[in-house]
């Protein structure tokens, strides 16, 4: 018998035996490294009862204080919410609110009186809140031109703005699109004991919007000149980056009920004081059954009045503590020693193991 080693040398070639060139690579012994041998040092945490209980208690212990703090912060916020859309319709128009709001000649002024429940420290933020208004509707969200807003030279870039892209004479509308067109146009004038209360409407938009997204050389053009008037008109002599109401409005809200910043009142309001608000109720929410609220609110470190975070923290923390107790009970009542071999499948079910 011929040994395998000394077999064919293929003709006149170099006589290598390798069936194919890549075989040369194979013949090398794999280099040892902890990675390739899958022996990297590793920590192997396992869910032992101790860990489970510790983790649950830890979560509970951390969450409950956070929850309390959040709840406390939320409770400290003083908020006045006033729905005025219904009450600002004069009784004679009660059944035809739509007609009232669409008629240019009706008097939209409406006086509301609000009582300050607690001391409100400045700054007091003034919001308007709209409900059932789908600013996040896809057709609406897309209907804007960021380029046009940014710089004057892109004035004619109105791709997504239909049907508010061009005025009748094919001139581009600035700012174009449905969002701008439907700009909220109710106005509020506040006074306390007949003293007008100044509302600061500067710096209510994000700095980045003012500085980078809305150009200082872009002026409104052909805006609200069409047949249909959507909302507020803009002063065409003020550049867009100073039209903060527009900038705030253009930040489309995520949910159908949303607040938008209207301005800031920069004086403290004593508890029990009565605020008189003169509202120009221009904006049409009657068509789609939307509500309008006026909101005055202070803030805490967490923001406005919202009990959800605090409650959720307390709930999760509580559940964790409860579970921790439950697990402790389970381990006390029905202990399973770690690594108890009787839980191995072959010990639990020897019959099934046979075949």
């Amino acid at each position: 018998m011929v040994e395998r080693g000394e077999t064919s040398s293929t003709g006149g070639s170099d006589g290598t035996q390798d069936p194919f060139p890549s075989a040369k690579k194979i013949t090398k012994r794999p280099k040892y490294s902890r990675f390739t041998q899958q022996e990297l040092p590793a920590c192997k945490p396992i869910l032992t009862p101790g860990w489970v209980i510790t983790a649950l208690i830890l979560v509970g212990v951390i969450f409950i204080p956070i929850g309390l703090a959040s709840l406390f912060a939320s409770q400290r916020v003083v908020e006045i919410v006033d729905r005025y859309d219904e009450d600002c319709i004069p009784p004679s128009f009660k059944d035809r609110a739509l007609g009232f709001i669409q008629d240019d000649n009706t008097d939209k002024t409406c006086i509301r009186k609000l009582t300050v429940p607690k001391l409100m420290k400045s700054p007091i933020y003034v919001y308007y809140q709209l409900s059932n208004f789908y600013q996040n509707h896809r057709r609406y969200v897309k209907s804007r031109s960021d380029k046009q807003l940014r710089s004057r030279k892109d004035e004619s870039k109105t791709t997504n703005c239909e049907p508010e892209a061009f005025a009748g004479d094919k001139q581009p509308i600035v700012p174009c699109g449905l969002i701008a067109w439907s700009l909220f146009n109710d106005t509020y004038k506040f006074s306390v004991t007949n003293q007008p209360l100044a509302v600061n409407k500067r710096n209510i938009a994000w700095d980045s919007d003012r500085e980078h997204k809305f150009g200082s050389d872009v002026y409104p053009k052909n805006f609200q000149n069409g047949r249909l008037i959507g909302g507020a008109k803009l002063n065409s002599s003020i550049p867009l980056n100073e039209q903060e109401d527009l900038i705030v409005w253009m930040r489309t809200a995520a949910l159908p009920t949303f607040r938008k910043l209207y301005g800031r009142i920069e004086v403290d309001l004593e508890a029990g004081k009565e605020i008189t608000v003169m509202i120009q109720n221009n904006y049409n929410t009657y068509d789609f059954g939307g509500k309008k609220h006026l909101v005055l609110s202070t803030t805490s470190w967490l923001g406005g009045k919202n009990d959800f975070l605090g409650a959720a923290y307390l709930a999760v923390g509580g559940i964790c503590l409860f579970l921790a107790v439950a697990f402790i009970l389970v381990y006390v009542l029905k202990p399973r020693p770690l690594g108890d071999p009787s839980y191995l499948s072959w010990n639990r079910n020897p019959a099934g193991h046979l075949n």
Partner: protein
Amino acid sequence: MREPSGRTKRKIRWSKLYTFSCFRPPNTDPVPIENRIGRPGFSRVVFCNNPHLHRMKPHKYPTNYVSTTKYNVVTFLPRSLFEQFRRVANLYFLLAAVLSLTSLAPFTPPSLIVPLVFVVGISMLKEAVEDWHRFLQDLEVNSRVVKTHIGDGVFVEKAWQQVSVGDIVKVQKDQYFPGDLLLLSSSYEDGVCYVETMNLDGETNLKAKRCVEATLGLNEDATMNRFEASIYCEDPNPNLYSFMGNLEFENESHPLSTAQVLLRDSKLRNTEYIYGVVIFTGPDTKTVRNSMKSPSKRSRIERKMDRVIYVLFSMLILISLVTSMASAVLVSSQMTSWWYLRLQDKDLFFSPSKPVLSAIMQFIRALVLYGYLIPISLYVSIEVVKVLQAVLINNDIQMFDEATCQSVRARTSNLNEELGQVSIILSDKTGTLTCNQMEFRKCSIAGVSYGGDLNEVDLAASRRMNSDMVAYRSSVDESDAMSQGIEICEFPEDDIGNQMGYVGAPEYLESLNLKNQKISDVHRESSIKGFNFQDDRLMDGQWTRYSNVYHMTMFFKVMALCHTGIPIEDDRADKLKFEAESPEEVAFLIAAQEFGIQFCKRTQSVMVLKELDRDSGSVLEREYKLLNLLEFSSSRKRMSVIVSTQDGQIILLCKGADSIIFERLADDGKSYEEATSSHLLCYAEDGFRALAFAYRTIERAEYEHWDSVFTKAKTTVGPERDELLESASEMIEKDLILLGAAAIEDKLQKGVPECIDKLAQAGLKIWLLTGDKKETAINIGFACSLLRQDMAQFHLSSVKDSGCGNQSEAILAAKKALVSQIESFSQGIQVENKKHMPFALVVDGQALEIALRSDVKDQFLRLAVECSSVICCRVSPKQKALITRLVKEFTGKTTLAIGDGANDVGMIQEADIGVGISGMEGMQAVMASDFSLPQFRFLERLLIVHGHWCYKRISKMILYFIYKNIVFGLTLFYYEFYTSFSGQVLYDDWYMTAFNVLLTSLPVISLGVLEQDVPSDVCHQFPALYQQGQRGICFSWKRIISWIINGAIASLIIFLSTIHALSSAAFSEKGNVADIAHLGTITYTCVIWTVNCQIALVISHFTWIQHLFIWGSILLWYIFLLAYGALPPSYSNTGFHVLTEAIGRAPSFWIITLLVVVASLLPYFVYMALQRTFYPMDDHVIQEMKHCKKDVFDKQMWLREQRNSKRTTQVGFSARVDAKTHHLKEAMQQSGASIYRSFTNSPIYKTLRSSPLFQ
């Protein structure tokens, strides 16, 4: 160029050694070939020595270039793209990407196209690399060179691909044939050459080919100058065993048959050179026609994953339908009053007058929008993970074979996890389990057995008994009772001694000391190849000092003379090497040489031995005249030579199967029969192939009479010839005197028994499929412990019916017989099952042929599956593939086929996983395989460690992937409820793009590559862990659905928490309220945190890599947000300064993140804690044991559980030891304590006690 020496040097004609074959009349074909030539199917014409005639039509045949690549430069792009988009998910994403170019899509085009290009690009790159490797292999084959005639008797070397039909080539010894050749002449005078066809059919024995008489003279380069002939033959076909054609040479027509045809990929052996004419080239050759395109296999998990994808698709369609319907309803009802939208019929999505159209448009958009439910990067991640897993498998040092310098190679990486689910292994024998190397191991001469007695089973059994006893005794000591119990079980050693009745105690002790404790050491390497024998009584000429030296000499002479081998020179002066028909003969010749009787020369009629002379102690050269040689055949099962010695004595030396020899013994030749047969039994149990040796002296007169009868029989032509020869040989092969028996080990590859043992314990069934004969197969069955003596063996064989005229009738009868056999076996099983008797089924090829027919096969397979081990012998490659397929289909379990030769290619391709043994020469099996191993034993680690790991990794990875995409995708859906189903997207386009590609891909890849539920040594120690894969519990529908639900819950918690936390009130101290960008970014942050923390809960094995990837991914999100926000607003859109200016400054953002992450992970955490408490899985418990270091402190429990975790099995070494131990214990209880007492007092016992073996 010329090599005249070969002919003169070796005069012996091998063909002449075969007494019967050379007189065989030429084949008579029922239909004369002449009638068929030229007809359809037989139209090929070859002009020998005129290859230029084949350059144009009609005789233009394909070139000899063979290509196995899937693609070429031109077809790569279209074909591989086509392959990629055959995957449903990819096709969906392609459509989505196309849609994204239109206004339909909710995203910008890049956010869909970038991931798709990335995903498809990586897959295509992988294809390209794989195909490139195939191309390189082809290149190597095609550029092999062969000497080709270019006219005037000059031969030059040409690359294979340039060889064309009609060329005359000269192939040298040990070269492969470049195409299918017609043999013209060889270095032997009679035009014979020997061919190894291992690459074609896996058979290792050499096949003789013979040229036609007319071309015998063309045996030198120069003679080729004037040679001109033409061949008319059959068209190319894949049939390896038939060839029909005519050679027109010198105006005469010579019929051609397979005997003249040398096939491509077979190899010239034992012949210096041959000349041949190329008949078929390249794609026309029979091998290439035989080679199947290897089917692309997909693992079980991947197939199931497809169904999971369909489930996700249905979810996608469902939520898209919900979205589109709701949108349409809203559009046609309330939305008309939303004046700020200025709905117009121009806008197809929101067309109040055409709600149905809007619904359809919205539906399409929603399909794209929620596409994140379908994990686009799942396929590519799996592919990347599998490639990395394959790299780890390839680089495992523990699977590196020092001997062949090769390591395991995962040739296709898409079956890694399938390795963890194998239930049935179908194994080839030769080259896979065995090395195809025979070793002389033991012999029994004149009734005495030499070469060690105790086998490893007995050894291990005694050790087991001993340890059991120690454990038992300690327990008895504790309870302080049952004193008499000690007596019963305290004497394992002596009882083993008793069991080995024929072994004296000193010898027993000696053999114990010889053997080492480990099983593997018993298979230690010996310095001499083919000789693994240790017994001082015979070595170094010691045997000459024994009294029965005559029988000893005769015994060795049988080894040295009764064979067909020839000696060949070796470098070492005194030792020769041998070549023979079968490797056993070589082993015998080597053994004889070691014992001092060297076969040193053979001529046509004389054999020369160098014998060790008893008296002088010197070496004498003796000549034996070879009178007759009665060759071995499978029906005769014996071989004899008749020689006359120098002093004129005529002796017949015979070797053969014991049953055959024993029935031909003379009355006075039976003196050793009893002892020998008991030894033979032992040899058989150890899996050795044993041959009995006998001789007789013949009177000259008797011989002469017989010789005339025999010669007459040989020269007879006709059907009665075989019968005559048979009876003639019966006449002389009788009245034999038994000398003894020799045991040859068909050497198992290293570690095979242990590997089989472990695999059996892990619950794998092993079927042996071999082309070898039944006896050999059974031997190997014993050697690998697939069979053992106390097993009930069922032999299924077809009854040979003689002369039953009608063929279909014969088949019917055979089938009937077979069915009744199967039925009786099945009944037998039912009876025996109660006694816990193991069964083995042995089937031969013919029976299989019938058994696998459609109507019997279910019955057969049911029987086969019941048996502990199944051995199929004499099976053809086709049958191997067929069995594999049927087993796969019948059981529905994962099958693995392992083999080394071309004959295994069929089953390798057919099985769920094909494994090729790469140490051997033939590459076909490796080429067709999915994994290649240098040695069988690596299968254990490959399956039990890597298979288990890969299975768990891929399962966990896919489940997690589904989870993470559901978490992400559903948040998009939930948001639609708040946008009046208008299709608005919550997230920025680039967040969406980054999700799968950037922010969640690396942790999941680290999970898929590096996760280890238990370390590798524990995988080995607890074979039961492997059954998790076999039962498929890690990727069950229950788990899939649970993960889907987990994902849905998590996304719901994330979404509801964020929208409520960010509802109308301000979220920062500055009084700012959140818009879409803020809500989107915060929700997205929570998603990133949740999915990455979830994977941290899934992973149980953290190296620094996992930590880096998981926490790095979360960190990367903030970095991404910073970088993205820093871009000018024309690029970053809503992401501009979002973190730095808005949410990052608000404490509520961070508080929300913490809340959401904890809340969304809590359900899973609690579920896991409960599961681990009440229903821990095996790997959980073992992790805990490791964690508590119980494996160190409570070693006994640790070992006990390891034992318990083994599946009770009837095959494998341990099972044999168990059976033996059981047997011994029973025997002991019966035999009583008397022997024990006498034994414990003896000094041997004390020595034994102190020996390290029993510590």
